[in-house]
């Protein structure tokens, strides 16, 4: 039995996860990384997919409480270019459609095992992405509720076409009072003409990094706190935002109508012909996708896209000088729109997506 409150983990499951993550944090330079994904498919049925792609994986359910399930997994994968077999452990926490991959293994394992696993499971498993504003909101809530100011160590910011920069101001400072508040990092990124992509913050009880790609990494603190203030809220934020992508294909509309999505950017990103060309070049690098340039940018751009992963199609056109219109075609899945929006977010510019008709 559990006495958990909404948004929190059941007590005994929380204790188990806190103990697991503590064992990782207790190691020298120990960190825990959590990647969040959304799925309609039970985790158990995804395991076979991983095996099909050459990952030897064994998962055992170790706890189950109040609709939460915790799996302990061991995975091995041959990496020919390194002439090695990569092995390691991770845990998977699932509840309804949310899935959290938790590991205390080294960064190499996270990059070469956890991330590929999520990639393999696409389109059944969709990795979350966050907007800068959403990260700000989460940090602000955390700081308010825990009644402790959050200061930052470093942050990354991105500029047009996904160009990334790092700002590490404080590595030599010792006095905690000399560190600036997390709000200053957001302001600084904006002043530099970009938007914050990831940030490392700390207070008395916690020390963690949160990124727009949905990755949460912590060096200090308990898993149950991170679940309560971040992971659970990330799922809520993203599922609300992704509702926009649901049932958008023309074949799903009773009158076969088109349901476009408007992506609005803060800056006039399409007022320059060179930027339009660069935008096409950027889209041509979008993986597992075919495209056609129907109208090449005088004055507007119009392209058709075919996501080869699940054969979804949609068109993309510039709308004025600061927006894009994404028009789903006959068959367009939510997964394809999520994948494309994430690509835009990471490789072009952050924008606000809304239903065009509304």
């Amino acid at each position, binding site marked *: 039995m559990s006495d958990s409150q909404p948004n929190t983990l059941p007590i005994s499951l929380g204790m188990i996860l806190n103990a697991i993550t503590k064992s990782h944090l207790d190691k020298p330079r120990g960190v825990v990384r959590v990647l969040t994904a959304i799925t309609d498919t039970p985790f158990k049925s995804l395991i076979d997919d991983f095996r099909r792609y050459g990952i030897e994986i064994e998962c055992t359910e170790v706890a189950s409480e109040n609709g939460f399930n915790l799996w302990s997994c061991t995975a091995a994968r041959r990496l020919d270019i390194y002439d090695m077999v990569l092995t390691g452990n991770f845990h998977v926490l699932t509840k309804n459609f949310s899935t959290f991959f938790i590991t205390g293994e080294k960064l190499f394992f996270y990059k070469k095992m956890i991330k590929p696993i999520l990639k393999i499971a696409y389109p059944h498993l969709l990795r979350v992405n966050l907007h800068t504003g959403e990260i700000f909101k989460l940090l602000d809530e955390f700081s308010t509720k825990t009644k402790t100011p959050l200061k930052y160590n470093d942050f990354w910011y991105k500029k047009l076409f996904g160009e990334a920069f790092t700002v590490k101001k404080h590595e030599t400072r010792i006095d905690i009072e000399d560190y600036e508040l997390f709000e200053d990092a957001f302001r600084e990124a904006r002043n530099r003409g970009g938007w914050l992509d990831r940030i490392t913050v700390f207070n008395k009880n916690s020390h963690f990094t949160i990124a727009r790609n949905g990755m949460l990494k912590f060096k200090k603190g308990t898993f149950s706190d991170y679940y309560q203030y971040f992971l659970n809220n990330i799922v809520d934020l993203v599922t609300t935002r992704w509702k926009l992508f649901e049932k958008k294909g023309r074949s799903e509309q009773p009158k076969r109508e088109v349901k*476009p999505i408007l992506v609005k950017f803060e800056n006039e990103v399409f007022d320059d012909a060179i930027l339009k060309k660069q935008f096409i070049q950027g889209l041509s690098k979008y993986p597992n996708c075919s495209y*056609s*340039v*129907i109208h090449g940018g*005088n004055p*507007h751009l119009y392209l058709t896209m*075919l996501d080869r*992963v699940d054969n979804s*199609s949609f068109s993309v056109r510039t709308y004025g000088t600061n927006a894009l219109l994404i028009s789903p075609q*006959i068959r367009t899945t939510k997964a394809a729109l999520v994948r494309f929006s994430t690509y835009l977010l990471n490789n072009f510019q952050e924008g606000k997506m809304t239903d065009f008709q509304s």
Partner: protein
Amino acid sequence: MSENPEEKLLNICKENRRAECDRYYQTVLLTLGLKDFLERNAKECRFISTEPRFSINNGEKEIKPDVVLQYGHKNGVLCEIKTSFPFNDVHLLDSLKQLENYSQESLGWDTTDRKIDNHDILLFCPMVDYDRISLKLKNWMETGKLEITKNLCICEWGMLLYPKWGKEIILIRKRSGEMACEELNLFLENNIRLDVSSLHTSYEECKFTRKEPPIEYTMTQLWTDVFPSIDSTDKEFETSIDDVLAIAYQFYIPWSNLEGEFSQIRRTWVKKVMQKYCEIGVAEKHLEIKGKYKILRGKKIKNIQEYMIEKLCKQTIKEKSKFQINEQEEDTKQKPLDFFD
């Protein structure tokens, strides 16, 4: 580094085909814009449709005006939208000869007997071409090279950024000639500004006009939009012309329901597209069942339209050079005879 002649030829061909597809796209936008404009503003003049078959000589010869308008009891306008004109006079005259056909009594109007008492011709000419074309038209009509017996009105049009609104518009401006329809004359004299951004949702539903599109345009649309709804895997699959048309009937609904039209896409266009897919190696014809094809989707084509254009251009160049070689061979065969003669 300079291109070799073959590469140069290929690049010219690709450039032309790309432009053709783009022009077709712009024609669709202009047609949609006109339809939308008249539906919102006109009381008398109405947009008829883009599909019904129009014919002259008592139904013997089909004509394909881009837009058909009707007004009053039995009056109409046949519109021809041009996105470019040839520079060569022979080809230009040939292209304008189309207007001679439009001058004849035509069949296919939205009346009980499909006929009309009188109609005018409205030519949409790109802004950059207006001066040249109007001069040529005048000369050829005066010298009798062109016989246009109906009222001919010429409008120039172009897609441009309208700074006042910060919006992209299609501007239509009357430059010469008059039409019997007072309402339409007035609209055109005051310039028509169509907001392009408002046309894009309708474009997704209406991608084809009554005119046959460049084959690469249809090949791209079917590959990107129709095939995924027939088979959602990334494997090869079998389909038929009927399967494609069944989807087209649902999603590319006709602009009107006149004359038993079911879709914007015609069966003959799909047939040609399937044939071309086979010729460039992305489809195979079923050996036993007529009208059935295997679509070879295994090829990871990055830029679909460009791929289709390149393959077809290479095919055209190859065929032309074969033809030239054959001609040369014929010449050399005849030479000894010539010599002995």
